């Protein structure tokens, strides 16, 4: 106990100092806490309600929605909203919710949680709710493969047992199988056919039935391996959804969610099916917590996609976007490429997908390029694809193999050269696709493109 309080006080002091120097998005104090007291996360007082959001894609958006909901109700929320989703981030998040005597001052803790390490951390934190968005392929260097991530999350549920409610995606053949034998109450959210006619992906994260190895078939798919699935050889199929989204109208940004005999219309914050899933999963949690449908609908009407994912400026009739794409995460990258193809504007697409977050591994494996659907980018309204940075030659080869005509591909090693090759007329939009951790870099490139367009116009 003494060690815990020493850790708490030292970490609180460190948090004050580091926050002054680096801002609040610094988790060094959490490192201090965990170093001095390895079970700090278990000992620190928790708010009455702790909610964890984990899974491969959609964690940030979903956990932000959840935290915003509680804030909108005047509740005190601790939330690791700066992407610090492993040990140190949790500890900072939780220590900010207690005073020097370890008395909890927060009402709710929302934790965006890394799926790889959840089996070590969640048993200490013991959330009442653990929402799993989905399990997809991600960085092979860190996450291995989906089957491995499934195993890690399954260990977390085994260790949590019946103290945690699992909120699971019924349309994901991988994560829907979680917590089957752990005594955990499982609540499923799912979606009826959205008629979005998803493209066929070259790689399927769930190519075979996890129970018998048979071929997985679909009545319909939403995107990638998410959909209404069934096995060709056994009785494995989409579980029944407790919260089922129907009449999903992405263009009008609305959906209806059915719970038993009740149906409620909710607004969506985007025209993409993956954000519809994020909203649906948050609605599921809110309903489980007892929020009324009206409260939820009114709240959702005030929400928008976090600007960290997407931003836009307009100049001379052209819209210039930054758009998060996540290199190495093939499901996220392919989904963005599909969006680029389906979004009908004439456009240039700029790749700032050079994996520079791996500065110690600047030549990361090229494997993700050959699992990602570059073929989607072979669309006539994508006028030019500019590949920049040290991965440019790898991107160019992949685009050529995907059938993109050579004359539509521009390869520049230096990102500073990008503005010189982006079109300034004959297009409606420019999309700068970027690594999620490099928002400011993407905006800098985008702004340089706009500056260059101004120069051209001025001449």
């Amino acid at each position: 106990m003494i060690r815990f309080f020493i850790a708490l006080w030292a970490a609180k002091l460190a948090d004050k100092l580091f926050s002054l120097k680096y801002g609040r998005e610094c988790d060094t104090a959490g490192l201090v806490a965990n170093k001095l007291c390895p079970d700090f996360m278990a000992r620190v007082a928790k708010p009455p309600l702790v909610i964890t959001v984990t899974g491969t894609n959609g964690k940030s958006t979903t956990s932000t929605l959840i935290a915003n909901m509680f804030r909108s109700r005047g509740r005190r929320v601790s939330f690791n909203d700066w992407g610090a989703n492993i040990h140190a981030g949790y500890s900072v998040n939780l220590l900010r919710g207690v005073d020097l005597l370890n008395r909890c001052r927060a009402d709710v803790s929302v934790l965006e949680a890394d799926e790889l390490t959840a089996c070590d951390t969640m048993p200490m934190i013991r959330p009442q709710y653990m929402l799993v968005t989905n399990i997809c392929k991600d960085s092979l260097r860190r996450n291995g493969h989906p089957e491995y991530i499934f195993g890690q999350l399954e260990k977390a549920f085994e260790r949590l047992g019946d103290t945690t409610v699992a909120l699971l995606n019924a349309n994901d053949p991988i994560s829907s199988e979680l917590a089957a034998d752990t005594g955990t109450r499982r609540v499923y959210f799912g979606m009826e056919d959205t008629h979005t006619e998803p493209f066929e992906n070259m790689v399927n994260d769930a190519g075979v039935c996890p129970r018998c190895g048979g071929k997985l078939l679909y009545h319909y798919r939403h995107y990638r391996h998410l959909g209404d699935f069934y096995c060709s050889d056994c009785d494995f199929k989409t579980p029944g959804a407790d919260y089922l989204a129907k009449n999903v109208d992405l263009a009008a940004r609305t959906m209806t969610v059915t719970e038993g005999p009740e149906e409620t219309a909710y607004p969506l914050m985007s025209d993409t099916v993956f954000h519809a899933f994020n909203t649906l999963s948050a609605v599921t949690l809110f309903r489980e917590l007892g929020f009324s449908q009206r409260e939820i609908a009114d709240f959702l009407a005030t929400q928008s996609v976090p600007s960290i994912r997407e931003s836009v400026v307009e100049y001379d009739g052209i819209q210039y976007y930054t758009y998060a794409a996540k290199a190495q995460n093939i499901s996220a990258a392919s989904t963005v490429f599909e969006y680029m193809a389906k979004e009908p504007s004439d456009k240039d697409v700029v790749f700032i997908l050079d994996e520079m977050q791996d500065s110690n591994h600047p030549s990361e494996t090229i494997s993700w390029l050959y699992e990602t659907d570059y073929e989607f980018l072979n669309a006539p309204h994508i006028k030019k694809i500019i590949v920049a940075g040290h991965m440019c030659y790898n991107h160019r080869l992949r685009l050529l193999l995907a059938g993109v005509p050579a004359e539509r591909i521009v390869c520049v090693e230096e990102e500073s050269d990008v503005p010189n090759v982006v079109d300034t007329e004959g297009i409606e939009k420019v999309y700068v696709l970027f690594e999620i951790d490099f928002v400011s870099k993407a905006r800098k490139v985008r702004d340089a493109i706009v500056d260059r367009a101004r120069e051209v116009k001025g001449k």
Partner: protein
Amino acid sequence: MKIVENLFPELCNIYGESYSMTYLARCNPEIDLRLTNHKTVPAFVTEDVDMIYLGCSPERKQEQIIELLRPYTDRLRALIDRGTVILATGNALEVFGREIREGDRVIPALGIFDSCAVRRMEPGDRHNSRYIAAFFTDEGEKLTLLGHKSQFSFSYGDFSRDAFATVERGVGMNPDTKAEGLRRNHFFGTYSLGPYLILNPPFTKYLLRLMGLDDTLAFEAEAMKAYQYRWNELTRVSN
């Protein structure tokens, strides 16, 4: 036509491995690419195939694959002795070794090579590295191979006769050896994962020649440019 059999792509394509075979087939129209599902009998059992490819798989499926191939161990041994081209990448090379150990568990493998893989599956145990390695063709020509490793296991044994290549930068079959992969006649196994033939166009040309085919690659200039750039970059960051 030359028959190239890609074994169990629905199980063994976790890092884009199958694109190696797609690429190979695009390089030469004389290649008849067969994709063999794990619920069917492989073509190599009854036909004289020209090349077999086995890619990387999740660990539990790797064990399933060993059992799928076990009845055909003698046939595989005969094909290797005959000089059929076989390529195994990532943990697929462990399938051809003696055994895989994970804690107290011992999983007997096909035993074609006398190597033992040791698997540890905690997150901190995942090994990531890159290699630059020297490979010598049957004619004695040196090819430089580039590899990316991301794995939960290493292999141990005496690789003095059976190494695929010698690592010049990076690690080999385990952190204590420069011997990388397995080789016997035209069986080539490497721990490198992903689409190895895109990563290594000179080696791809060699495989095409081994099968008696013209060795021109699809988008050869662009493939070589990307390879050269990666090679330079790996050399620079390894210094």
